[in-house]
């Protein structure tokens, strides 16, 4: 077989492993299989085994192991999703949980099954490599990549190049702490690049060349920080040497004395941006770039595989959508919220919400995964995306097919019309699964969703993102929720802090705390009061965040805490 020939298996419009990638992943599985054996026979202590299993995606949770599988830059084929369903059925309890970092988590695998699961993933060109541990994590990207109408360039070839470069990196696999990279290629930031350790924004310079704006030192967690531009324009071909320089500075100088101060954001903060920039640039200039950089042809090879499908020119002729919407109010609601414009005429992007009222945010059953695979095969060129909002995207749907797709989704309980609305809540697993949790988050999300169950009310409120974390680690990204909820524990009782005004886009903002925490049962009421303030002060067509920016926090504080 020609080593460079993409293997069959997945959708034709995404990166496919060549023989090298395939062998690399298989060797990694084999290596992990022997590491499990060596843990069991005592060759490896638990302390030694821990980072090895984490680097293969395996966590020890509250009740069991949890396996986190990477969905690099959120792109997934129908074949791959079907395999994820198979794994859920065969090795877990029949469902999986999609996370805020374009991964899927299985909550109940057995240690002895994990190598087999990894092999099953390798069968469809997937893996769990570096979804955890103090290494460079799964590289994420805009979930509308390649189809967004505001795109300068598809960010996924860069993300794939970085995925490969960061895999089993000999120098950067024992870092002070985890390291997350996100890439965006559009005008709007849908990948939250300013709250990543490195955020890359594809930009065009004055003379029309495409390169990267490099943002360093963002992050959420205990000490939320917005990243700084460390390099305004990095020529494309310098990306690997520049990343190597950043990583070497971080690996050498990042703090190792305190886990909570070990992220690169703290290094940047304590050292100062100018000094860090000087250190990175000095390291970068000392490198023999030609020996490190990728061959430009390699990026072309990768990019070619992400080429869009050939769209049907005649699809643009369809103009009955409005009629269909008028005829079916339920479809109308769905179309209002869950459909985005596509760069090709006559095509649309569908967001499938994994946030049904009363469900666990981000969970999908094996049966639902299969339905989505079938729908993708039939209507979306066999391709899907996972968003950091924990939803699933169908990226290439003919506008004329929207109604049929909606019907198919509805039959499977997947047509919740709430993308971007108050019930499209992001929540981490919290106390229900996570051993680090200080409070529950899923039940809080469910209670809020119930409170705002009425479709009419949700649509009247409009765009409003709620994000919930079950502890200070902030996996639910509460800092950047328009409304953020952080579950803490105060002398044995859960207490929920509410922040407001967080923003994950290019105008990134960390939410402001409104005051003392609330008991679990009081959270829905508190959210309702915040919403009431918005509704009574908004001007015509003003979204929640706009009202907030205009009036500030005081009216909200007053509504929540003023004595009655």
């Amino acid at each position: 077989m020609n080593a460079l020939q993409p293997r069959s298996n997945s959708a034709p419009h995404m990166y496919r492993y060549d023989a090298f990638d395939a062998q690399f992943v298989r060797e990694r599985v084999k290596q992990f299989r022997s590491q499990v054996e060596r843990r069991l026979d005592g060759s490896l202590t638990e302390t030694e085994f821990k980072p090895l299993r984490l680097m293969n995606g395996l966590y020890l949770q509250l009740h069991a192991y949890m396996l986190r599988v990477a969905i690099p830059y959120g792109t997934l084929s129908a074949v791959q999703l079907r395999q994820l369903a198979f794994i859920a059925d065969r090795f877990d309890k029949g469902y999986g949980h999609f996370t805020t970092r374009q991964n899927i988590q299985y909550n109940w695998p057995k240690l002895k099954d994990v190598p087999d699961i990894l092999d099953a993933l390798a069968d469809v060109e997937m893996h769990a490599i570096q979804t955890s541990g103090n290494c460079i994590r799964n590289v994420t990207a805009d979930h509308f990549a390649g189809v967004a109408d505001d795109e300068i360039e598809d960010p996924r070839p860069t993300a794939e190049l970085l995925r490969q470069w960061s895999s089993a990196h000999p120098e950067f696999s024992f870092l002070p702490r985890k390291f997350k990279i996100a890439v965006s290629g559009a005008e709007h930031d849908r990948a939250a690049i300013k709250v990543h350790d490195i955020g890359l924004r594809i930009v065009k310079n004055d003379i029309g060349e495409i390169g990267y704006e490099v943002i360093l030192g963002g992050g959420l967690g205990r000490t939320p920080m917005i990243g700084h531009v460390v390099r305004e324009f990095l020529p494309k071909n310098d990306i690997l040497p520049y990343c190597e320089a950043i990583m070497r500075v971080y690996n050498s100088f990042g703090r190792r004395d305190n886990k909570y101060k070990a992220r690169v954001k703290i290094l940047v903060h304590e050292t100062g941006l100018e000094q860090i920039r000087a250190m990175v640039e000095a390291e970068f200039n000392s490198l023999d770039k030609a020996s490190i950089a990728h061959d430009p042809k390699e990026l072309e090879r990768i990019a070619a595989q992400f080429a869009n499908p050939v769209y049907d020119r005649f699809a643009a002729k369809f103009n009955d959508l409005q009629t269909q919407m008028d005829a079916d109010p339920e479809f109308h609601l769905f179309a209002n919220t869950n459909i985005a414009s596509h760069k090709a005429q006559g095509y649309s992007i569908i967001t499938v919400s994994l946030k049904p009222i009363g469900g666990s945010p981000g969970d999908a059953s094996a049966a639902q995964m299969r339905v989505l695979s079938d729908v993708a095969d039939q209507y979306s060129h066999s391709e899907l995306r996972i968003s950091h909002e924990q939803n699933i995207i169908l990226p290439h749907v003919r506008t004329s097919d929207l109604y049929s797709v909606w019907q198919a989704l509805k039959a499977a309980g997947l047509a919740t019309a709430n993308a971007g609305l108050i019930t499209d809540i992001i929540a981490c697993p919290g106390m229900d699964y996570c051993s680090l949790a200080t409070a529950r988050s899923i039940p809080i999300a469910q209670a809020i969703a119930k409170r705002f169950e009425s479709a009419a009310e949700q649509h009247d409120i409009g765009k409003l993102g709620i994000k919930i974390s079950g502890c200070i680690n902030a996996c639910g990204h509460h800092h950047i929720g328009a409304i953020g909820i952080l579950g803490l524990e105060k002398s044995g009782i859960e207490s929920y802090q509410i922040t407001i005004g967080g923003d994950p886009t290019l105008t990134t903002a960390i939410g402001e705390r409104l005051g003392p925490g609330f008991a679990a049962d009081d959270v829905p009421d508190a959210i309702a009061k915040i919403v009431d303030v918005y509704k009574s002060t908004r001007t015509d067509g003003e979204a929640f965040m706009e009202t907030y920016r205009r009036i500030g926090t005081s009216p909200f504080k007053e509504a929540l805490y003023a004595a009655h």
Partner: protein
Amino acid sequence: MPLINDTGFIADSWVRVSEESTLFAEQIIIPFAQFEEAAAANIKKIGVHVANTVKPTELVQYFAKLDLISIDFPNFADGRGLSIARSIRKAGFIGELRAFGPLIADQYAYARSCGFDTIEVPEELAARQPEGQWKDAGKSLSLSYQRGYMHGKNILNQRSIHEAASRTGAV
């Protein structure tokens, strides 16, 4: 302490000299701070042991006089020594580069890639992870994606070669 290279567990011809002891053997590894003293004592081969906070640039001026640099790994999860090794190699050191500390067999390939020749591990660790495990670990990842590192077949280079060959019709 047990010493490992690509051939397995090997005899160590170097003697580590602690700060208190006098300099006597032919090949000694001394703390970096004592280098000048040893250099004056007319010893055949000198190696220095450095902490993982050393600035690689500080070592460069001594390269010609050093046959070995030993880098401390206080624990296996602290990867600083890997960056130091890489920087030292990049700066042109051609003597023996040794990792000193409780690195595990699973890190062997990484250490080699970053430029280490040998690893000196505690007895207890070598007893748990005998020679065979180190040899297997050395072979466990035969392919790598990072250009400019030293171990394994580089995938990006392989692709370039392959691409060039197919352009000239060799494939």
